[in-house]
């Protein structure tokens, strides 16, 4: 199949960028989207041009490193799918595909499609952990945790930190990312103890990174590769309000 690409090219953080057209006449529908970009890059290298820089690593949808806006949607036209799991059979012969980096003030573009998502790491640093030091942990079965609670905690903990929620949010809000970690730890007895400090510190960090408000449009849930529920945001709000009240 023939594909026209319009890819955002930007040499570095300080330079301005623009969309550049590329024509790929021979794309195999079984290729993944990233393999299609690999093919383009191989061609560019052979032409001694700078290849398109993009983030990727595991290519099986779990590391969270890949992520770009494809035809105006985070991770492309399929819902709940990472960019690396998107295959070219999702497009039609002759399609024009726009490829842009995730946009948010808190995610500055480093080069082409690579963005800096270290704000997420700093949100976790603010309190996304239990203060359990190595060694001397009590016997694992000493605190039973209801099956449903463990499953619910897992649902929240499944977040891969790709940033699609921020990219698809009209306000570039990191509420889903932050809330997923807060819920994961708030549900478990091991995490409850520090719950009050955690939610306040993480929310404060989220704000200071320059993310926007959550407008509850629920778009993040649609694009999230792990289908993290927006109800976690409600739980974060609940935990936050409770921490202020008490």
């Amino acid at each position, binding site marked *: 199949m023939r594909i026209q690409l319009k890819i955002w090219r930007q040499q*570095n953080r300080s330079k301005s960028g623009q969309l550049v057209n590329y024509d790929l006449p021979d794309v*195999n529908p*079984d290729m*993944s989207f*990233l*393999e299609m970009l*690999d*093919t383009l*890059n*191989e061609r560019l*290298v*052979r032409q*001694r*041009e700078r*290849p398109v820089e993009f983030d990727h*690593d*595991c*290519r*099986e*949808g*779990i*590391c*969270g*490193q890949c992520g770009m806006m494809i035809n105006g949607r985070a991770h492309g036209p399929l819902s709940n799918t990472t960019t690396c*799991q998107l*295959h070219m059979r999702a497009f039609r012969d002759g399609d024009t595909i726009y490829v842009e980096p995730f946009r948010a003030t808190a995610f500055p573009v*480093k080069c082409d499609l*690579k963005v*800096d*998502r*270290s704000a*997420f*790491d700093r949100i*976790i*640093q*603010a309190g996304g*952990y*239990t*203060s*359990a030091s*190595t*060694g001397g*942990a*009590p016997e*694992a*079965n000493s*605190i*039973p945790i*209801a099956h449903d609670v*463990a499953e619910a*905690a*897992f649902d929240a*903990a499944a977040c*891969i*930190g790709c940033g699609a929620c921020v990219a698809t949010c009209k306000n570039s809000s990191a509420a889903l990312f932050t809330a997923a970690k807060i819920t*994961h*730890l708030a549900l*478990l007895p*091991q*995490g409850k103890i520090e719950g009050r400090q955690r939610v306040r510190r993480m929310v404060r960090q989220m704000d200071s990174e320059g993310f926007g408000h959550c407008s509850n449009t629920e778009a993040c849930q649609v694009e999230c590769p792990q289908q993290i529920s927006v109800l976690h945001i409600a739980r974060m709000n609940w935990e936050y309000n409770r921490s202020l009240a008490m």
Partner: protein
Amino acid sequence: MLNAKIPEGPLQDKWRHYRSTAKLVSSANRNKLQVIVVGTGLAGSSLAASLGEMGYRVTCLCFQDSARRAHSVAAQGGVNACKNYKNDGDTVFRMFYDTIKGGDFRSREANVYRLAECSANLIDQAVAQGVPFAREYSGYLSNRSFGGVQVSRTFYARGQTGQQLLLGAYQALMRQVAAGSVSLLPRHEMLDLVVIDGKARGIIVRNMDSGALERHGGHAVVLATGGFGKIYYLSTLAMGCNGSAIWRAHKRGAFFANPSWTQIHPTCLPQSGDYQSKLTLMSESLRNDGRIWVPKGREDHRSPNEIPEPDRDYYLERRYPAFGNLSPRDISSRAAKERIDAGYGVGPLKNAVYLDFSRAIREQGKPKIEEKYGNLFRMYQKITGVDAYQQPMRISPAAHFSMGGLWVDYELMTTIPGLYALGEANFADHGANRLGANSLLQACVDGYFIAPATIPNYLANEIKTGPIPIDHPAFAESEAAVRERLQVLVNIQGKSPADHFHKTLGAVLYDKCGLSRSQGGLKDAIGKIHSLRDQFYNDLLIPGGIDLNSELEKAGRVADYLELGELMCYDALTRNESCGAHFREEYQTPDGEALRNDRDFAFTSAWEWAGIDKEPILHREPLDFEVVTPTVRSYK
């Protein structure tokens, strides 16, 4: 002479004895000591967090853009621990025996025993960190069984156990970063090791965003950089996984053990074209209900559902009636390759075998299968566009895990004093074949429990050393060498991108030093790798300079692979026996099974770098089996 420094005493007392007698560093002195940890996977994160908690000053770096993305994240199945929650007779000794047998009696007893011994505490640790393991309705932890053992000792968090364990370690690491005890450098790649007076004293790293070279000094350097299975190009590993850090350490004097032992995983998605960049792993659990077959006729072009039962060859059930479709990984992979090579492969490239669920769906009903494997079937459909409820999956073997790695002693120290290797980067615990759910375990145990106890034993003698001077000539020399190497790569300006060489090398290795090896094939491969390396240095093309440049990153890794690949072939060539993942065609039983030679080859091969284009030097560490008696693994 290699000294593994295994403590005296009976097997079950060795680790306790070691810990009671190892030297300690008092808390007042710890902040005078700097440790560099390379890699933020399970081993790296957990060690950096543990040392940070103890009060050492830690610098931790990874090539990913966040520590949470290290490839431990992709492990699906679970983590073994002998808690005996199921009351099915599990003990530390039994777990030790399963692991050493699974490794085809090519690992150190003391190390393996310690792995089993520390496993239970790991679960406690992970639960305290909030890892949401699967639980029974009673609220207690759930277990499942995994290949090669008779007890249920695998703890799991759906199909994302690696992710959850890694996030636990990552969060612990983030806590230390916030506390200021660990400085974390994402998007930094180690390019050389600095050795001063015979001791590891620092590393040269490249900031991958700016291209700047940096010097980092430390009293100890820890490599937790994972496996190098990506050398085959097509593998289950992440695109960025590489062997460069351990290879540079090897060239600085660290011995490399058993480099050719790579586990080839039997249930991966087959290659569908030249453009393919990786082979996705499908969880091994599928083999519990799926039946593996190929057509009996060579040129059978019918669609799988049209091939009647009599025309199907369920070759695993035929050859290994006792274990059938659940035969261990090395045996299943080899059997698949045998069928594919004989021309019975299926799919457009005739490179796969069928994994068929029709009987399971008929007997248990589709809802039951959906409940067990729904996510895997969805993943299969996402990638291939095929509905596996309607027709069989196509699977093929793919390179997965490196049992080999830097040689380490009981303390996980390499042959360079002060240089440690943890997790998949070392060779220690899995012998010639790794059991499922043991890799997460080894990485965690190394990082949480073993290295935090053994590194202080070395650092205790470094308290008076003082800060490591990064203006030392050794740093300058290493940095200059790194700079020159990068410049050489950029200056070649030939015609082919790095991936071209990587793919060619991968194909050679998979063919000659993959599932089965032969003397002729390996010699041929060494010659091919030589000439490929020459081509590489004449024809490589990297556009751009030494700032942010992913082509330069790739080329540097491929340059190292082109040397490592050769060592793998030498290793396979000298081991005149078949064991675990290493199958030499000359050494097999009349019915095609591996023929181990305990009399001549009960040793670990530790290779010393002799220089480019020189034959590496082999050192042997004998494996003394004091407790177990090596037996023949039989799955018939």
